[in-house]
């Protein structure tokens, strides 16, 4: 049986089969949270703080309750819920846990912080209700920047966090590193800041909570990347046993990380629904999504690197400061960005000596959550800038200096204690350079330079740690430790298979890619395999989807479970075919005798015995065709890698950065479905370009967000994102079921560095270098005309 979807050697894995999700998504038959309509359902919105810092002196909701259509309104005192507190297993000198109340009680810490929940008969009346709320504040002085947060005597965002520092770690500090810097022939430094960003899933956050009287369960249908984590926190905040809460996730329109933390609105909606005894829906509107959701990426680096004459890096010294906003997200905490940057900054390079200080500060801005790539887009950008700068000082080519420093022998244990499994760091860079060279971009650059035009070529090299297991997460010292995944699989009497996963696709096509894995293991047609996810009642526990863990961990668990089911099929099949177990194999939906392919049984035949004629089963086999397996990440995980090459032209007159060419050479090991991999890379690159050139969340001096719609928050559109060509290399992982490595974040990681390098290459004749993102046309023109300082 050869299907069009098969690869040449007859496997599903490796084939760009059409996505199983697409028919319903493309014909409007998907079901998102907002498509759920329950009888007697109410609509919720939140009264939100209008001041960035201060004490709440009164909340009066009496007029709210009089608004036509409004059914109820609750404050923190009315609902009396437990706080959400992310904890790291670190001493207080390193990490200060802070509580995030579900609704603000006596203090507000950012504009947009939820203070009260209003329920009404429709989505319009509820907003009328919000306008009738009367909240008074004793406004304090907001802390909005590194300078303000760290100034002596600065107002404190959280009383328990002296100096407004939530995390402060110093790591590695290789002995003698100061001497290395003192003696090195070349020392370069970079100071860079990166703009605060919004991960911006097309589908905003949303939830429908209802009471299932028959099951005695609170049913929470929510668009989360981490259904079980939401269940755990919900149960805790509500003070009820976890078995009385069921979290179900319908189709999702993106998450990118901001949905892998628990939102306080999810809890408040559930609590309010219990209080009024009616289903309650909350759909976050775009204004709240832009201003009061979880943000990310506002970081400041002060980094130095020492090099020898040959351009080999001798030491790296970095100070990383991340502005995590008003609260620590659960479960990752405000430590997520600085810890990621500190642990992984050396990246793909052989850095013999390393010292880093990573800090998280708290400010009166909307809180942050891990956004696709988590710090890696930032530190990769800084590393790549350091190499570019050293290349200029030493008179080396930018590609050559990288070649001299890339890790080429594996496994490699870095100065940061991380062991990297094999990758194609050098090969990917060489290929990226070859693509741009063969297309004539270097000639074009020389040609245009003669005409006074500004063409620039830039690269970035990076890896992406994926498949973090429990051990790797434990090294971060999280109080709850994600890592493993469990899969249950069963075949029914029709011979089709359903496998569960604890991961949660929010656009990544797991229903297709995981089915490809199962189909191969069982010799089944893809149409006969179904993946179930996003229901806490169906899976014992699962950590959801983030950190590029789904195919590496979830996919491996699914593969193992399928293998176990396959063993059972073989065992029963051999018995029924009256042959030895090692003389049977699975293919084409049948158990066949190896020495006589004409003798075989279909899975339907076997399922009939397993379920309907169990007396025919071998004595040592239980009825039914089910299996369970779990998988945990191995060692330090498995590293995908990529090199990006970008060509830009800067337009004199407007400062516009036009991307003329974008080439990505990626290696995610075995690509389960190359088209899905390319989709991940393209989407990621688009978000990386967004960070490099367009998006920034800004505030005025009072802490009022100044980008409350897409007019001011400049998410790029299809017009701004160029065609991206993708080239695949394949270094299979030894640590995962199929040799696959994670691929969810890579595009985002490499784009800012490559774009920034290309812009700076183009700016060479001006002598100006730009290290801060986003690089707006205004700043580019400022550099081209060297007439005003950047702003």
């Amino acid at each position, binding site marked *: 049986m050869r299907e069009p979807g098969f690869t040449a050697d007859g496997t599903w894995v490796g084939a760009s089969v059409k996505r199983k999700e697409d028919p319903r998504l493309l014909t409007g038959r998907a079901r998102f949270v907002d498509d759920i309509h329950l009888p007697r359902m109410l609509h919720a919105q939140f009264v939100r703080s209008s001041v960035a810092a201060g004490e709440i002196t009164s909340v009066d909701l009496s007029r709210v309750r009089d608004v036509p259509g409004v059914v109820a309104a609750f404050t923190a005192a009315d609902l009396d819920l437990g706080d959400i507190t992310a904890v790291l297993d670190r001493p207080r000198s390193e990490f200060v846990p802070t509580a995030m109340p579900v609704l603000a009680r006596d203090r507000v810490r950012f504009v947009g912080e939820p203070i009260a929940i209003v329920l009404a008969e429709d989505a319009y009346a509820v*907003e009328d209700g919000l306008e009738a709320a009367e909240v008074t504040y004793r406004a304090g002085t907001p802390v909005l920047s590194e300078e303000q947060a760290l100034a002596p005597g600065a107002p404190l965002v959280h009383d328990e966090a002296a100096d407004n520092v939530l995390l402060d770690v110093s790591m590695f500090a290789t002995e003698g590193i100061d001497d290395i810097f003192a003696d090195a022939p070349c020392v370069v430094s970079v100071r860079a800041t990166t703009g605060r960003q919004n991960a911006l899933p097309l589908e905003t956050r949303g939830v429908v909570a209802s009471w299932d009287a028959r099951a005695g369960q609170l049913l929470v249908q929510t668009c989360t990347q981490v259904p079980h984590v939401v269940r755990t926190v919900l149960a805790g905040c509500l003070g009820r046993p976890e078995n009385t809460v069921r979290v179900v996730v319908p189709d999702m329109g993106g998450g990118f990380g901001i949905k892998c933390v628990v939102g306080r609105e999810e809890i408040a909606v559930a609590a309010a629904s219990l209080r009024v005894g009616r289903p309650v829906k909350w759909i976050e509107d775009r204004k709240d999504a832009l201003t009061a959701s979880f943000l990310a990426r506002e970081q400041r680096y002060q980094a130095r690197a020492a090099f020898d004459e040959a351009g080999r890096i001798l030491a790296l010294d970095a100070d990383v400061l991340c502005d995590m906003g008003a609260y620590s997200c659960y479960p990752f905490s405000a430590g997520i960005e600085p810890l990621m940057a500190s642990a992984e900054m050396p990246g793909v390079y052989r850095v013999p000596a390393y010292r880093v200080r990573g800090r998280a500060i708290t400010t009166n801005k909307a809180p942050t959550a891990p956004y696709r790539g988590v710090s890696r887009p930032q530190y990769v950008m800084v590393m790549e800038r350091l190499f570019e700068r050293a290349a200029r000082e030493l008179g080396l080519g930018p590609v050559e200096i990288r070649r001299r420093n890339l890790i080429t022998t594996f496994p490699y244990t870095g100065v940061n204690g991380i062991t990297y499994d094999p990758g194609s760091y050098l090969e990917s860079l060489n290929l990226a350079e070859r693509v741009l060279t063969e297309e004539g971009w270097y000639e074009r650059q020389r040609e245009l330079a003669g005409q006074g035009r500004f063409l620039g070529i830039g690269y970035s090299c990076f890896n992406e740690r994926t498949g973090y297991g429990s051990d790797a997460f434990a090294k971060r010292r999280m109080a709850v430790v994600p890592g493993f995944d469990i899969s249950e699989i069963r075949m029914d009497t029709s011979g089709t298979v359903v496998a569960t996963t604890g991961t949660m696709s929010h656009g990544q096509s797991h229903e297709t890619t995981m089915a490809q894995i199962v189909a191969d293991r069982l010799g089944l047609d893809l149409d006969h395999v179904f993946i179930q996810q996003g229901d806490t009642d169906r899976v014992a526990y699962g950590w959801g989807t983030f950190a590029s863990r789904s195919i590496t961990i979830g996919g491996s668990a699914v593969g193992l479970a399928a293998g176990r089911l396959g063993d059972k099929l073989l065992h029963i099949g051999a018995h029924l075919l009256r042959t030895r177990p090692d003389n049977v194999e699975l293919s084409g939906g049948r158990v066949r005798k190896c020495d006589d392919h004409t003798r075989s049984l279909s899975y339907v035949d076997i399922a009939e015995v397993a379920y309907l004629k169990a007396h025919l089963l071998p004595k040592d086999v239980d009825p039914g065709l089910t299996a369970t397996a779990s998988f945990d990440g191995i060692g330090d995980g498995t590293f995908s890698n990529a090199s990006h090459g970008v060509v830009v032209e800067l337009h004199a007159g407007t400062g516009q950065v036009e991307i003329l060419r974008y080439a990505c050479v990626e290696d995610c090991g075995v690509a389960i479905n190359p088209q899905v991999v390319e989709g991940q890379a393209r989407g990621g690159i688009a978000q990386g370009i967004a960070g490099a050139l367009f998006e920034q969340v800004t505030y005025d001096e009072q802490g009022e967000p100044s980008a409350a719609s897409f007019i001011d928050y400049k998410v790029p559109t299809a017009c701004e994102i160029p065609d991206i060509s993708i080239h695949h290399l394949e270094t299979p992982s030894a640590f995962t079921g199929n040799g696959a490595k994670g691929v969810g974040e890579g595009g985002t990681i490499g784009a800012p560095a490559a774009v920034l390098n290309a812009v700076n290459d183009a700016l060479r004749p001006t002598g100006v270098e730009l290290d801060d993102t986003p690089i707006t*046309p205004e700043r580019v023109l400022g550099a081209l005309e060297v007439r005003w300082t950047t702003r």
Partner: protein
Amino acid sequence: MKPPPFGYHRARDVAGATALVAELGEDAKFLAGGQSLIPMMNFRLARPAHLVDIARLGELSFLRRDDDRLHVGALTTHHEVESAPDRSVRGFEVVREAMRWIGHLPIRTRGTAGGSLAHGDATAEWCLLAVLLDAEIVTASPRGSRVIPAGEAFLGFFTTLLEPDELIVEVVFPKPAPHAALTEFAERRGDFAIVAAAVDLDVAGGRVTGGRVVLGGVAPVPLRVPAAEALLGAGERADAELFAACGRAAAEAVDPPDGPGPGADYRRSLVRALVARACEEALAR
């Protein structure tokens, strides 16, 4: 992002529409394409108590030539103008070509010429074109009809000469402008311009004998720049040097706002570049 309660009325004819708005008073507004008004209502920045929907007044949707004049009905959508055949816009190509700068296709299929002029955004392409080409804005109200010269229509930030119950019926461009162009710059395609520049040149025998320069994004209203226009009136050779000088003169003459968003220096630089570019494009047309 849902509007407060409002009453909805659908007009059957122009007289009925204006009479109804007059009767409902200050808090009543015409609703045309809804591409400016509805977003403002969703943000609760506009709170009309009543909307009088004029979208079904088919008689206000037209694009017509009579002799040298181009008539555009108030309800003609940006997209209808954008896709107009050559013959109906001959000599007024600048009007058609400018449409592609307005928002995105879905917006252009609903947004209307009249709505844009009434909304009075200082960077709106329709407002710039009207001032550039000395258009006449024809209106109707319970007090009768009048013609407002575009040069007098825009009073300040989103403020026009229109009375609340005065409906724009059509905009009339009085004479062909074969050498006119509009160009602009925004960070993203489809955004309102940071700066927009529109020019109309009189060209004879390779020389520029007169011209107009109108800018958006540098003042609360579409701004004519006499200092730059003076350079165009001197009969100089139509070349890059003249156009660059014109751009520099315009940049020196304006006093753009300094943020929030793009700063004054940047806007001035854009004026310099875009005026020169608009001149080049106008000449090439």
